[in-house]
């Protein structure tokens, strides 16, 4: 490396400069620690800054994510061709079983309609969907979030559910003008009230940065089996009840883990759902500041 010959580098080594530099390091370290405290105390200010910076960089992130998505799609298509035969066989079997389910669903639908007509049933609130592209999953080792291309002007509001394919992905924690951030269900700060479907047992699903969130606050005598369906309970007016999340993946003495339906690492497009719930989490609800991103 010939850069040692550069004049300014040699001057840098002078003892006076070194002393000043040491102090500047100390100051910068203290500034970083002070910022962490500010982030803990004044979440509104920090959120505002995040929104503005994320808004500014979303077009760049979007431009970068397109070739990355193309490369990923190419790898996937090669993979698909290799698995074509097995996949076809699997789909045939699935189709046969789905046709049986369709029959059952049609019968239940008719029954449901006739029973509803007997009661004075209030239908669920209408919901609208906003589709957005995932342009970044920047969290690294500590945070599980994605940045999407829909923001305030598209109707995204904090607290809305993000769904992709078969189930819940997470919820919106930060909304800029044309970008938003979704906290995934696997993040350390994610807490979602859920119901275990066969037993109607309530619990809270808590992320711990691993791929499979844990179920908390289960009573000791609850009957649970691997493969039980987990859906949102609708408590706390966060999400509507019955939104599918995943299946129980493992049951041991001290922890029950859930495998989400959505492969969170591979989502390209997601839908942000506005259920129009009257008591939904707003931007100034303290629950977001406490449980969401600092």
């Amino acid at each position, binding site marked *: *490396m010939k850069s040692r010959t550069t004049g300014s580098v040699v001057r840098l080594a002078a003892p006076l400069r070194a002393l000043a530099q040491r102090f500047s390091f100390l100051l910068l370290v203290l500034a*970083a620690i002070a910022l962490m405290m500010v982030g*803990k105390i004044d979440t509104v200010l920090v959120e505002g800054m995040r929104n503005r*910076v994320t808004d500014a960089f979303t077009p760049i*992130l979007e431009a970068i994510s397109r070739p990355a*998505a193309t490369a990923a799609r190419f790898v996937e298509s090669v993979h698909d061709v290799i698995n074509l035969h097995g996949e076809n066989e699997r789909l045939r079997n699935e189709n046969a079983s789905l046709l049986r389910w369709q029959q059952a669903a049609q019968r239940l639908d008719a029954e449901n309609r006739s029973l509803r007509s007997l009661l004075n049933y209030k239908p669920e609130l209408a919901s609208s969907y906003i589709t957005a592209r995932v342009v970044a999953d920047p*969290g690294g080792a*500590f945070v599980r979030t994605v940045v999407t291309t829909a923001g305030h002007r598209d109707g995204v509001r904090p607290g809305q559910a993000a769904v992709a394919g078969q189930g819940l992905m997470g919820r919106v924690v930060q909304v800029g003008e044309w970008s938003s951030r979704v906290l995934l269900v696997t993040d350390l700060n994610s807490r979602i009230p859920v119901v275990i479907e066969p037993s109607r047992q309530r619990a809270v699903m808590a992320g711990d940065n691993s791929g499979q969130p844990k179920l908390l606050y289960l009573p000791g005598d609850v009957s649970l089996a691997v493969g039980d369906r987990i859906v949102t309970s609708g408590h706390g007016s966060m999400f509507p009840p019955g939104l599918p999340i995943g299946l129980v993946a493992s049951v041991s003495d001290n922890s029950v883990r859930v495998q989400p339906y959505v492969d969170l*690492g591979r989502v390209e497009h997601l839908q942000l759902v506005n259920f129009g719930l009257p008591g939904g989490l707003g931007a100034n609800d303290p629950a977001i500041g406490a449980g969401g991103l600092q």
Partner: protein
Amino acid sequence: MTGGFWGKIDQAGRNIAPLAVTVALMLIGMAPLHLPGYAAIAPALPLMALYYWVIHRPDLLRPSLAFGLGLLQDLLSGTPLGMTPLIYVLVYWGVLTQRRFFLGTSFAMLWFGFALIAFGAGFVGWLAYSILNLRLLSPDPALMQALMTVVLFPPFGWMFMRIHRAFLQH
């Protein structure tokens, strides 16, 4: 390239190369690759750039810029504000004190030094995040990320050398 308006512009352009490379790597590192489980162990690309430029041209990437880079990364990635600046400033300080040792030695030494720095940075990040969340977190993700970063360092190190030679040596 002696004096003159255009000469100065040219030199200024060359001098921002280290910062530009680091910011570009940060943004590229955030692109979703749609690989299962990849986001959690994605290599810390800006850390590689920071390490290389602090060893070779600390005059072009000042500690305050390293702080700013960390701040930008925190704002974009949703990590607690101040955590990445802390890591970057400590990395900067650590590398600068050992700079004479790495400068001019073999690539293997450069890589070994980076391994120490990457694991150190992972440890600081894990400690800071644990304190901020008031609980002891599993160190595995940070370890895996550091390992991934170290393994992928050689191609990026080679690229930095090419950029270094192309823009900053005459």
